[in-house]
């Protein structure tokens, strides 16, 4: 028989609860999509750092277009790819606030490649959560700049061919070469161990901004079972076996100051 849920009492320790920074509404994400996990991690990190009332979130154009609905923080909607420019305008006008962009790979690595590159080069004091699922999710699974060679998408039906569309774009590798970058890391959301590591990275990235250091980005390898044509479980396996070999996890740039923050956390 199922045990009835008990109201928490003083002796009970709260070990899991709805983050205050996450809205209590249903998201429109597909089953098995890791956008939801990324949201939860970001919300937990915001709560734990006690910064909910200081955050301004810039939502992208992509499946996370409604991100401003899903977080209990001030938020706005950028044009496709322009979130880093918009965040720059916000941060420069509200230096005390913590400005976060949340962007997909089409948004960040394709149409918004110039904006993210220059925000990083300027050492813009913003935090970017980069959700890389190797497709354009929202528009129905077209090829993204991050799509793998041979990957079949709705706009590369025979599989991505280097002779036609070149090679996957590695944003962490690219941005870590810039002096303005302070904290550039890649994590994955395909299993619990990696999810925990992702959470730690998001927390550190926010600390980097709180400390007024330079640009920070956490790339999260993510699932899109709907457009990959896989079950949620298979999709997690695809991240592990296909995405990670192409996009190795790790710390691409962590300055000494950022390392100190990482340790302190």
């Amino acid at each position, binding site marked *: 028989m199922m045990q009835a849920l008990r109201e928490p009492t003083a002796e009970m320790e709260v070990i899991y609860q709805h983050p205050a920074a996450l809205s209590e509404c249903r998201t429109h994400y597909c089953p098995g999509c890791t956008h939801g996990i990324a949201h939860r991690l970001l919300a937990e990190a915001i709560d734990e750092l006690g910064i909910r009332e200081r955050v301004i979130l810039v939502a992208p154009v992509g499946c996370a277009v409604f991100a401003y609905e899903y977080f*209990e923080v001030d938020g706005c909607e950028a044009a496709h790819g322009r979130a880093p420019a918009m965040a720059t305008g916000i941060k420069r006008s509200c230096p005390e606030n913590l400005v976060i962009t949340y962007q997909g790979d089409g948004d960040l690595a394709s149409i918004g490649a110039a904006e993210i590159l220059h925000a990083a080069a300027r050492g813009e004091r913003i935090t970017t959560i980069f959700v890389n699922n190797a497709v354009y999710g929202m528009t129905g699974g077209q090829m993204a700049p991050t799509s793998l060679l041979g990957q079949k998408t709705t706009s590369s039906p025979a599989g991505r061919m280097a002779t036609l569309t070149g090679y996957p774009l590695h944003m962490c590798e690219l941005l870590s070469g810039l002096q303005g970058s302070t904290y550039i890391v890649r994590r994955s959301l395909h299993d619990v161990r990696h999810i925990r590591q992702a959470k730690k990275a998001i927390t550190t990235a926010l600390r980097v901004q709180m400390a007024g250091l330079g640009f920070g980005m956490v790339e999260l390898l993510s699932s899109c079972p709907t457009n990959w044509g896989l079950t949620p479980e298979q999709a997690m396996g695809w991240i592990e076996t296909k995405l990670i070999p192409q996009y190795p996890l790790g710390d691409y740039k962590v300055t000494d100051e950022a390392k100190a923050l990482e340790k302190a956390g």
Partner: protein
Amino acid sequence: MPKELLKGNIAIAEAAVRAGMQAYFGYPITPQTELLEYLSARMPELGRTFLQAESEIAAIHMVYGAACTGVRAMTSTSSPGYSLMQEGLSYIAASDLPCVVVNMMRGGPGLGNIQPSQGDYFQMTRSAGHGDYHPIVLAPASVQEAIDFTLLAFTLAEQYRHLVILAADGQVGQMMEPAELPPLLPVAEERPVWALTGARGRGKNIISSLHLRAEEEEIANQRIQARLLTICANEQRSTEYATDDAELLVIGFGTAGRIAYSAVEAARAKGLKVGLLRPQTLYPFPEDRLSRLARQMRSCLVVEMNAGQMIEDVRLAVAGRIPVRFYGRMGGMVPMPDDVLTAIEEAYALHAAVV
């Protein structure tokens, strides 16, 4: 304040500073670059935000972000850069955000040249980005007016929470004239209640132009249209010269209007009953005044530094009551007063022919 000899671009920059502009984002392009250069020194001096963006696209989206936080924000550019800003303008307008954009028009289309032009009339008044809306468009013809309209631009932007474009041409930006600047106004300390400042002690604020349900998007459009109706009713501005007994009305804005003024003066000296209407707002177009004036005129002559763009608004206001004629130069060519005078004389002669 005493009059100073000021270059148009610098005058607009300093006027914006004195109007309390807190954030400026821009990208170099002739003939407005001095504006950006001037602010690169002036804004930090006052502890305000100046940033050279990586492109006009980024500049307008930085303005969009700054405007979301409730600060007085501005960018400036010239025609090719203005084209790049269309996306951001549409988002700003759809989000009910106040901000000011200066377009110091130059010869086009394409890369064109750096001479003064009025070729962006359509792009500013009709389609500043996709969707159904118009920005407020102010058209100065002198350095003094450029200063006054910069102040007016910020006032109107905030009063209506609407996008305002200062539509000048390279000539206004580059010429030097004696003009008077306003005193330095204090910067607003308080941010508006709708601004994004962090959800401290209040619910969250959201700024978005996304309405997935068509019913909601239509309501959002109706809100914009209702605001535009008020703007059209209250903000039509124009100035005129010698219209009382005129039979021929010359109509021109900005630099073309100013040149037309000289031509009208010369025509008057020759005894021709000619007057001038110079629209100061291109949107809303001063159709009420023009419609009334048209009743007394036998014809009108539109003078523009383009192939004929404002003439469409003139035709709408005149509604077929009198002939509408046109004299224009394109591609950065500035009309000579004598050439406009010849066009006036030709148009005037046609009156006699009709009798």
